[in-house]
């Protein structure tokens, strides 16, 4: 799945990414087990598109995003970033080159309350990445901050104020301005709207779409809310216990999912229309423990289509339709239920 599709160039290519956290016990801190937070994840991201990583808590989506930024160093695998024709492996690049790489990759955080330093003014917050990377002089940096604040819909007059003077939605705008100050190519957004009220959520989603169009940004979007994901992304990757179970273009994934977990996940989302109260697929049991994963397919203990092979063999991610990858032994024979395309 590494080839670029017609007319698009790949910006990020993640291959076989693994992140294991050791569980240490006892006086000598002996490693007694491994939490396989990310276990062989492979995906790519085209220039200018939005890919969403979805899944439930503990599925490894945030860990994957952090490995991509090398906020944490992956255990194994490659994170290839195309940098002006040159291919760099973010996972292994020496620390000395990391700073210049990070200028191209920035992050928007979930919680706009804890991700802004309460003792810094907007000017300091948005200007900090410029300062860290030694961009311009004081005047140039201030000009850039003014420009960024305008871009995200905040008044530049407010730049001497502190974050407490702003509402949740405005704070999230500050976080976005900070992430974009260095003109990055890749923006990793980890649940950027989940802490916001519904009426404000729409404003921020619109802003993210608008900025993408204007600046040609590429988004790696991490989220658990499928309605938000459907709204913002071109392609979606569904994760379950450290692995990607399905990747497909958004409309296709929602209309005809090929993995039983995707089917159950879509079916669980409550639809804001009382006339569409449908039969939900209620998954039995609990999400598997990433420190003690079941053999074979991680989803088999909860899967109603599971057969003997699912318990024994780990399925691999296969392309079963153009751009549609599934990791399920029975993907080709099952006919699963999606979400009916809207008439609106």
């Amino acid at each position, binding site marked *: 799945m590494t080839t670029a599709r017609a007319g698009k160039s790949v910006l990020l290519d993640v291959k076989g990414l693994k992140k294991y956290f050791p569980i240490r016990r006892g006086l000598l801190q002996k490693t007694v087990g491994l939490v396989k937070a990310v276990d062989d994840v492979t995906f790519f991201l085209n220039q200018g598109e939005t890919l969403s990583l979805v899944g439930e808590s503990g599925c490894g989506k945030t860990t994957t995003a952090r490995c991509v930024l090398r906020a944490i160093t992956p255990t194994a695998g490659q994170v290839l970033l195309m940098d002006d024709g040159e291919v760099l492996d973010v996972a292994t690049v020496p620390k000395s080159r990391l700073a210049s790489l990070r200028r191209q990759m920035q992050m928007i955080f979930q919680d706009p309350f804890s991700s802004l330093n309460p003792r810094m003014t907007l000017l300091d917050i948005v200007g900090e990445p410029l300062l860290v990377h030694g961009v311009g002089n004081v005047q140039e940096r201030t000009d850039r901050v003014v420009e960024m604040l305008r871009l995200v819909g905040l008044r530049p007059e407010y730049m001497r104020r502190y974050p407490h003077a702003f509402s949740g939605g405005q704070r999230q705008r500050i976080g976005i301005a900070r992430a974009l100050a260095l003109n990055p190519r890749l923006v990793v957004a980890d649940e950027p709207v989940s802490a916001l009220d519904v009426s404000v959520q729409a404003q921020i989603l619109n802003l993210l779409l608008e900025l993408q169009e204007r600046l040609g940004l590429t988004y790696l979007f991490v989220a658990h809310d*499928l309605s938000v994901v*459907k709204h913002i992304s071109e392609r979606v990757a569904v994760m379950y216990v450290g692995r990607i179970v399905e990747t497909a273009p958004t409309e296709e994934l929602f209309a005809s999912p090929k993995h039983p977990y995707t089917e159950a996940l879509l079916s669980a989302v409550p639809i804001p229309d009382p006339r569409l109260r449908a039969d939900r*697929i209620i998954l039995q049991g609990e999400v598997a423990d990433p420190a003690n994963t079941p053999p074979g397919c991680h989803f088999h203990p909860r899967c109603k289509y599971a057969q003997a092979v699912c318990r024994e063999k780990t399925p691999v991610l296969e392309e079963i339709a153009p751009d549609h990858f599934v990791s399920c032994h029975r993907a080709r024979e099952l006919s699963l239920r999606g979400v009916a395309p809207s008439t609106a």
Partner: protein
Amino acid sequence: MQKDTKPLLSVRNLRTSFFQDEGTTKAVDGASFDVSPGKTLGIVGESGCGKSVTAQSILRIVDRPGRIVEGEIVLTRADGSQVDLVKLKASGPEMRSIRGGEIGLVFQEPMTSFSPVHTIGAQLVEAILLHNAVGKKEARRRGIEALRSVGIPKPERRIDEYSFELSGGLRQRAMIAVALSCDPRLLIADEPTTALDVTTQAQILDLLRKLQRERGMAIMLITHNLGVVAEMADDVVVMYLGRVVEQGSVDEIFHDPKHPYTRALLQSIPSIESVPRLKLATISGSIPHPFNRPTGCPFHPRCVSSIAGRCDKEVPILQDVGEGRRVSCFLYQ
């Protein structure tokens, strides 16, 4: 909102304020609604709309410096007699028998609402002993039964575990078991699934529906998630800044919203059903800080249909617009 049956709970002109040094916060500012027996009432609104304080007022557990300033909360008891909860002493015997007895409560955050130093069983048995004349052995037996009825596997073992040993979904089930252990006629669920994943949320909502069918209890479901309301509620109350802006049946609210706020709210949510990457309609501005309440209709600064000279001066009242529909907006007066 049916006229033929007596409402189980009737809230009239409820005002709850918090008196702080910085000023008075009117968390609930004249809310009125009814809960019908055996039905689910959804209370929807964004943060700061007063939905949780409304629930706390009903149970008389509003924290200082807050208190109920005005209004009536009339509960129809099992024997048909009526009692105004506002007039009862918050820590008196009658209120204590209602709270947790006739009215059960499920909180949003199951992690913080259980004590971490007592077992699930100890907390469950405590509730049963408080409201029933039974011995410890019988209480424990009922506790195990309650855990089983909410679908917790191996309840004989789970009852002796601590809340941190359970997963989020199981903890919320245990919370529901505690609330249901005394067979309440009304269950108040304050954002019961907000902290949970979608698949777990589907499990819990399914459980609530099943329990309601079996026991015929009424549910007051407080949430900001319109999808959950559409799925669960029979009737809906929409709140904004401490006031009820609109109420009606779930179908009317979603398919024929009257108040500009309800309309804007419904348009601004992305749905799993909608077309991707379309610009969403938004509500301009943000929710005002409670110290800075706008004059007149609290929604007028963000309202697209605001009438200058009227909406910013006068406060609209909740009026009947036919068939149990009530709207608080000058467009309909």
